């Protein structure tokens, strides 16, 4: 099989992993070396495909042969997909060639599980070792790890990689039992806890005054959860994510709408990917991480799923009208962060400017804020929303999109607007 054919198969096999981050790595670069590579700034998206996803890393599998039978996965052992396997040198060469042309930020290497977890991990680590030690590659490396691999191998992977990740896949063991019978939630979390320990350990050593620089270790771990493959509610999904952020300090939880695959399983019928739901989960995730929201404020046991037609912050504000209006000139930061249409950066700008000036609507317009969204919820030096407006039932209706956008038509999935997309990334709701 030639290299082009292998690349076709093993890139196709890797595309269901949503992670593309190349930011947050330790600062390093190629100056003074014969190699190439740098990390440490914000990540760069070198291209975009028409699915709206960024192309930042060469994302491939070592092999798509796999012992496991995860029914959402095209590479499961029951699938009839063509199998292929890269040699370590082929991946090394592809990474370097792509990197030198500035197509990519680095390598995201994963693999189907062959023979055993340890054997597979050794193959993956071998590629990273060659890149770092033989070719002095200082670009970004993200390695997928297997929870059942031995701790020493996970530790070794962390020495070569900028990021390591284990996909949690589904938020409950019940879901895994049906769809990914080899996987185990508890073992995954234990492995994440172990990785967190390693990351923390290195941070602590770095801070010791006068101590020698500790060997490198990945600066973060991330994971991915499938959305819509099992009946888990948004409250369950967000609760699981929240736990991973707080207990294991994950940098990112990626949500991936289960989308049709070429080799459907009889256990998991194909359906339209719930893209809007995925988008709302990302917005909710941002509220948890940067806006001090709690899971039960966004999705509660009595109302466990997000409103698909409104962003979760606006939805919260409409359910909590007694909190509003918020005075732009007087309210504390935590309250400003609750205002629909105000993101973190603009809250900071408001706090800073109001020390010197009383803010008026014209000032907010100059910040290019979404005034239609803001006006019912704020007080400025020259504006107070009509009491009736905030109480009236028509307020929610005012923010609902036109009804045709709510239909999930599979042939033409609803397209988030550019603003939705930007908001999903920046968290500015």
């Amino acid at each position, binding site marked *: 099989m030639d*290299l*082009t054919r292998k690349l076709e198969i093993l*890139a196709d096999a890797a*595309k269901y992993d949503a992670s593309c981050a190349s930011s947050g790595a330790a600062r390093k*670069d*190629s100056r*003074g070396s014969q*190699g*190439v590579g*740098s990390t440490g*700034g*914000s990540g*760069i*998206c*070198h*291209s*975009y*495909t*028409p*699915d*709206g996803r960024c192309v930042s890393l060469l994302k491939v599998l070592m092999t798509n042969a796999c*012992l496991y*039978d995860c029914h959402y996965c095209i590479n499961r*052992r*029951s699938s*009839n997909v063509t199998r292929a396997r890269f040699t370590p040198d082929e991946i090394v060469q592809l990474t370097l060639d*792509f990197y*030198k*042309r*500035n*197509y990519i930020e680095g390598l995201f290497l994963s693999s189907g599980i062959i023979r*055993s*977890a340890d054997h597979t991990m050794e193959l993956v680590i071998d590629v990273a070792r060659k890149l770092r030690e033989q070719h*002095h590659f200082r*670009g970004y490396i993200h390695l997928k790890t297997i929870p*059942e691999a031995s701790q020493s191998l996970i530790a070794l992977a962390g020495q070569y990689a900028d990021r390591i990740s284990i996909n949690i896949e589904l*938020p*409950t*063991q019940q879901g895994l039992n049906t769809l990914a*019978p080899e996987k185990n939630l508890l073992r995954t979390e234990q492995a994440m806890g172990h990785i967190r320990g390693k990351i923390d350990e290195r941070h602590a050593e770095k801070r010791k005054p006068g101590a020698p620089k500790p060997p490198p270790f990945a600066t973060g771990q991330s994971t991915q959860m499938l959305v819509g493959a099992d009946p888990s509610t948004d409250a369950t999904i967000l609760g699981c994510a929240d736990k991973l952020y707080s207990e294991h300090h994950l940098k990112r939880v990626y949500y991936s709408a289960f*989308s*049709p*695959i*070429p*080799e459907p*399983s*009889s256990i998991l019928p*194909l359906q339209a990917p719930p*893209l809007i739901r995925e988008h709302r989960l990302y917005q909710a995730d941002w509220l948890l991480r940067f806006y001090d929201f709690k899971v039960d404020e966004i999705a509660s046991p009595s109302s466990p799923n997000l409103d698909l037609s409104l962003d979760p912050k606006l939805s919260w504000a409409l359910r909590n009208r007694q909190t509003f209006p918020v005075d732009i000139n007087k309210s504390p930061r935590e309250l400003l962060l609750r205002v629909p249409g105000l993101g973190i950066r603009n809250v900071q*700008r408001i706090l800073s*400017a109001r*020390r010197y*000036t009383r*803010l008026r609507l014209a000032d907010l317009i*100059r*910040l290019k804020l979404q005034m239609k969204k803001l006006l019912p919820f704020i007080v400025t030096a020259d504006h107070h929303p009509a009491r009736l407006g905030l109480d009236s039932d028509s307020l929610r209706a005012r923010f609902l999109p036109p009804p045709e956008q709510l239909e999930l038509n*599979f042939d033409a999935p609803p*397209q988030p607007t*550019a603003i939705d*997309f930007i908001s999903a990334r920046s968290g500015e709701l």
Partner: protein
Amino acid sequence: MRTIIIPPDFDAWRTTARQLLAQSTHPDELLWSDNPTEPSLFSEPSPPPQASTTTPITVPPAFVDLARSAAAHTSEKRWALLYRLLWRLTLGGERHLLAIATDPDVRQLQDWCKAVSRDIHKMHAFVRFRLVAVDTTTRREQFVAWFEPDHRIVRLATPFFEKRFAGMDWSILTPYECAHWDGQKRYFTPGVPRSSAPDEDALDDLWRTYYRNIFNPARVKISAMQSEMPKKYWKNLPEAPLIADLIAESSTRVHDMLTTPERPAKPAPNNAYLESLRQMNEQPNPDHKTS
């Protein structure tokens, strides 16, 4: 009204602005231009600014960085705005001015900085190097890229390439200025036409293979792609010619998936590792919480 004509770069503006400020020149008395061939209609010939006095001018450090970045913007109004901000921050007595993001001048400064920073980011993303030769003595690979920035960002954007691609020789050609790295130093030459840069690289086909296969036809979001990769960049991206076909074929490809017969689950093969997993999974987890 005096017209101040400077070369279009930040250091020239800074030197001139220092002298004008030392003379307490009010911004309303000045017209700024970086185009020596088009003096303004109402201008008087400007006497050369006198030698600078020794009065130190102190501005918030953030202003120097913002001004350097805004100076790379192509707006012809930038020199005047930068001087007005400098005046307001110093003689105007508004030392806290940069804290007021809602001030129209500050807003304009930040908008220009944002446009410049986005342009730099897109240059870091969309430059595509093409291998042109390998130096026979040093054995260093030599790469050339073509890029068309919106603003005058070559000097601001290229330290990144020096750090990232120290181990290879490279040139980035643009219509107004070119940057080069030879392993020892980064240097600049005047702009060149598009025809000076190579069109293709032997690896482009393999890159297109990757691009085609990493695309998921079951989740088409064209507006999301275009907001981050606007069409103006497409003509210099080797993968962009694939976009139209990928979109056109996506619904057929999804239809094929939906009409594929579902595959039954195959029994587990005889494998010691799978057997050990099965045994582990059957052990009750004492502290397992069902959520």
